[in-house]
């Protein structure tokens, strides 16, 4: 378990040839009487032939996520298809600094990018702004802390919306303009003069409302619309 309601699952998939950070898979769950349900989940791992790692947040009243988080046991099986998606994707050969904005379990595909950045050993500057309800809701908390200490080009900012830590300098609340790094601060070049290749690439992932707000703030802060890639997840059904 990553938090009280999020769990990381590791699946052995012998014919999995690998994937890029940001891509997702389709899962199909089938009950004994043949009823089935399908959902999409982001890949949490960097490319890993033979293995697929997912982190799933249980949605209260949901159909697939409570099974994956609470019920599924080692040895149980499901059908999996992927990797899917080629747009919301980062690989170490892409030039330019990277800004990641995560809302809640939207951290998962962005964590795959952070992990790839660390593993590949490139010096690409990364800034992760991770918005969570409270410190208890932060997924991958120890791993993120380790990376932040180890790697000077990786900045990790945790922003809380409901309740923060006693020594937190920011009043808990939703993502605001002041929370958004500009295209040039902390990064290499000014957006107006920089060649497109050294522009900051921005990836935003989270619930629909979060992403809409973040994308609007990013543009207000001077990030070009075509430098922002988004992945939204809606409510998973009534």
């Amino acid at each position, binding site marked *: 378990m990553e938090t009280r309601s999020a769990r990381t699952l590791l699946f052995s998939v012998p014919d999995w040839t690998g994937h890029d950070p940001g891509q997702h898979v389709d899962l199909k769950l089938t009950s*004994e009487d043949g009823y089935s*349900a*399908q959902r999409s989940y982001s890949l949490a791992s960097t490319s890993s032939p033979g293995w697929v790692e997912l982190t799933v947040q249980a949605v209260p009243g949901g159909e697939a996520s409570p099974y994956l988080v609470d019920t599924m046991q080692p040895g149980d099986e*499901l059908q999996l298809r992927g990797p899917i998606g*080629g747009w919301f994707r980062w690989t170490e050969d892409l030039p330019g600094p990277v800004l990641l904005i995560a809302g809640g379990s939207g951290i998962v595909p962005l964590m795959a990018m952070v992990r790839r950045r660390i593993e590949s050993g490139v010096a690409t500057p990364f800034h992760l702004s991770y918005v969570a309800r409270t410190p208890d809701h932060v997924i991958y908390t120890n791993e993120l802390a380790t990376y932040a200490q180890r790697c000077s080009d990786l900045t990790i900012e945790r922003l809380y919306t409901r309740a923060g830590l006693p020594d937190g300098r920011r009043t808990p609340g939703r993502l605001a303009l002041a929370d958004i790094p500009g295209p040039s601060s902390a990064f290499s070049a000014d957006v107006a003069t920089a060649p497109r290749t050294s522009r900051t690439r921005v990836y935003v992932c989270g619930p629909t409302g979060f992403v809409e707000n973040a994308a609007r703030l990013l543009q207000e802060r001077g990030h070009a*619309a075509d430098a922002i*890639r988004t992945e939204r997840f*809606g*409510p998973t059904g009534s």
Partner: protein
Amino acid sequence: MAVVSRGFGGRRQVDPQVPPGQYRTDDFPVLTAGPTPLIGTVNWTLDVTGVDGASHSVSWQQLMALPVEDVTVDLHCVTKWSKLGTRWRGVPVAEVLGAVGADLEGVEYVMAHSHGGYTTNLPLRDLLHGQAWVAFEFDGSALAAAHGGPARLLVPHLYLWKSAKWVNGLELLREDRLGFWENFGYHPYGDPWREQRYAGD
């Protein structure tokens, strides 16, 4: 042979109105590759480009003067949600093509273009005969920017990525070309009832 996931019960609601692999939602999720653009109607145009490369623009005023239809349709998104009974107002695509006197001789496909560079390819026949609209109202109100306003393509019999938001161009083609998601491995046609999610389905 299906793999059974031990202990999985699920809701066991098989809804005949929902295509295979889809589930029903009453919300209207937003899925877009980038930020939502804010587009006004004053300078809005929809460019129809013929196979000869000649282009004709339809202004917002001209669009509003064309015959409108009110339709109630089901939406099916490839990310697996379906929303049933949605109410739209729009101009049939056939009326838009007719208004600019588009020459459809030899035209088999259409590439829809959107503000921001998004594209999606469709067979021409799927845009005619009361199957597709340039929609500008949802549920009795002006279409919100997040859902593709001021106007989007509405082709409800195909997965929703074919219903290009913020549509600003229809390019008539003799031969099929792949659009934005289709180039990333999504199905070139996208029929939800045949579950054509990805290339090869």
